[in-house]
């Protein structure tokens, strides 16, 4: 399958200056991605791993205090590959919403509270598509809403009259109106109830199937990743530490962090004690040496404290950034063995 978006050693740091002291937050610390057409690529990571910054970088929204420190973000447009940071402001604006679409966290609040939804839709459409009349714009909106299985009446409503789940779905509908080739969704289901979450995920699936485009889905909820993503990249401390198909990530996780992540999730029918990852994620302003996971890793070895591991291939579509994967081995003395290895020095 063809690549539609790739990054090469992308680095984006926040440089903060507060009352004289400088603080550098290495939010995206060398990320290589290769995202294909017609797939759902999930980025799984917890708070403080840099995923929101990564999305901002992908979307071309790097602004002070965030700075692009290195690398590039390349989109494959119909007429060739383009680095999003080489575009002018106007070109970027056109690129967004037509080619790339971004659904931020808490997107339910993007609507103007004093306008009916149909006004927002009309404004949006008229600014991107050549329509002769406002009514034409409304027709396009209506068609799209119906296609997605949402009730037409919502266009007549004000944002506050709708439930949180409905607003989220309407936001997603707005984001996909122009049939973008890439949809970037940041935690689209986080604040939602379980049943509503299912509705939103199903909506995203339906959109992806219909448009055969790419969805980059960022969420820490592994259940949602399992249900929606085709491939998953696990992000930790500003880097992708493991990447593979969803089946392999859940079935044969290679990185110790991934294993912990998956084994710590409760499942029905099994009340046996589970352990969570010991310690806390590192501060991105103050990363440990070598592999950022080593302070919490039960199977860390000497080289882990000294050098950052590169990717090793466990299979053709499965790469892991861990020294223990170098031998091509499975570290069967896995994460559930908390007594072994270096032990976990929590902060």
């Amino acid at each position, binding site marked *: 399958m063809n690549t539609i978006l790739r990054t090469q050693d992308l680095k984006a740091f926040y440089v903060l200056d*507060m*009352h*004289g*002291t400088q*603080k550098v937050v290495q939010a995206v610390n060398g990320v290589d991605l290769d995202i294909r057409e017609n797939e759902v690529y999930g980025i799984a990571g917890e708070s403080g791993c840099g995923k929101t910054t990564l999305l901002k970088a992908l979307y071309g929204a790097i602004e002070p205090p965030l700075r692009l420190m290195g690398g590039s973000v390349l989109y494959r447009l119909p007429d060739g590959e383009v680095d999003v940071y080489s575009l002018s402001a106007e070109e970027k604006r056109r690129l967004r919403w037509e080619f790339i679409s971004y659904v931020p966290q808490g997107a339910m609040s993007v609507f103007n509270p004093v306008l009916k939804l149909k006004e927002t839709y009309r404004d949006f459409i008229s600014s991107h598509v050549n329509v002769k009349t406002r009514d034409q714009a409304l027709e396009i909106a209506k068609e799209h809403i119906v296609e997605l299985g949402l009730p037409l009446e919502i266009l007549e409503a004000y944002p506050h009259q709708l439930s949180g789940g409905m607003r989220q779905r309407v936001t997603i509908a707005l984001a996909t109106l122009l049939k973008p080739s890439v949809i970037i969704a940041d935690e689209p289901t986080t604040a939602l109830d379980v049943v509503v979450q299912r509705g939103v995920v199903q909506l995203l699936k339906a959109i992806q199937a219909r448009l055969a485009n790419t969805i980059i889905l960022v969420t820490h909820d592994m259940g949602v990743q399992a249900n929606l993503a085709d491939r998953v990249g696990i992000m930790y401390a500003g880097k992708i530490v493991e990447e593979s198909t969803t089946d392999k990530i859940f079935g044969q996780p290679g990185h110790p962090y991934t294993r912990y992540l998956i084994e710590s999730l409760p499942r029905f029918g099994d009340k046996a004690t589970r352990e969570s990852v010991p310690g806390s994620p590192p501060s991105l302003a103050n990363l440990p040496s070598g592999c950022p996971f080593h302070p919490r890793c039960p199977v860390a070895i000497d080289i882990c404290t000294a050098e950052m591991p590169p990717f090793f291939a466990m299979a053709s579509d499965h790469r892991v950034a861990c020294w223990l994967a170098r031998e091509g081995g499975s570290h069967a003395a896995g994460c559930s063995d908390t007594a072994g290895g270096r032990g976990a020095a929590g902060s």
Partner: protein
Amino acid sequence: MKAIRDLFRDYRFALSFLVLCALLILALVSMFAPDDPTLWGTAPRDLKPSRTYPLGTNSKGQDLFWQATFAVRNSLIISVIAGVVSRIIAVLIGMIAGYKGGMTDRVLMFFCDSLLVIPLFLIIVMLAMLVRDRMNLVNLGLLLAFFGWAWDARVIRSQILSLREREFTQTAVLSGTDTLRLVLKEYLPFATPLVFSTLINNMAWAIGMEITLAILGLVNMDIPTLGTMLQWAITYQAMLLGYWSWLLTPIVLAVLLFVALYWLSTSISEYLDPRTRVQRVGA
């Protein structure tokens, strides 16, 4: 202290601090004045600035330089009294009304709102006319204080209302803290930047009000203040006669005072703002 050092990095604080220090020194210098500033004719009249009289003399026969030192001193006294007393009232009323709610809140806010809708300027003018003879610095300060608390009481009350809904209020209640200690310990730190910046704004307002009343002739015109100096300059036709120092002295001093106070208030309240404070804490 670390806080002062941090503040000095902000150019606004540094400059305003220096200017205010200079003005304070000027005010203190008034202690060394050779003559009573309310007396007329202690120096030759209508002299242009010279070596003996650096700012010249006015038509009342007073050395403008010593007048200026007293003017700064007195204006500062009025504004400090007005500002501090009105802060105390505003904080007390705002906090009690905000936390207690119910009838207490309604009664207090009734008084507060009455003061807000009354045309303050007219009332102050009227009262000033009534007590003109007994209008000294302290009385003027208190008069202005009485009218200056209403707005900020409301602002502080809103702050308290929103803090009351915050979860850490519940934590404090579960820790067994009683109401008074809760308000003082938990909320006051949030209210401090508000109180501080409104203090300084209030001081500036008081100075402005004093100048206005002076120009209308409603204060004791013999006591030198920035306002009275300006008023005398106008009365004696400073512009027509070309005695620039008569006008410029009070104006420049007043402008310096206002700008310094404003910058001081902005820089300190930015520093104390809980949001930036949280960033600095433990960073």
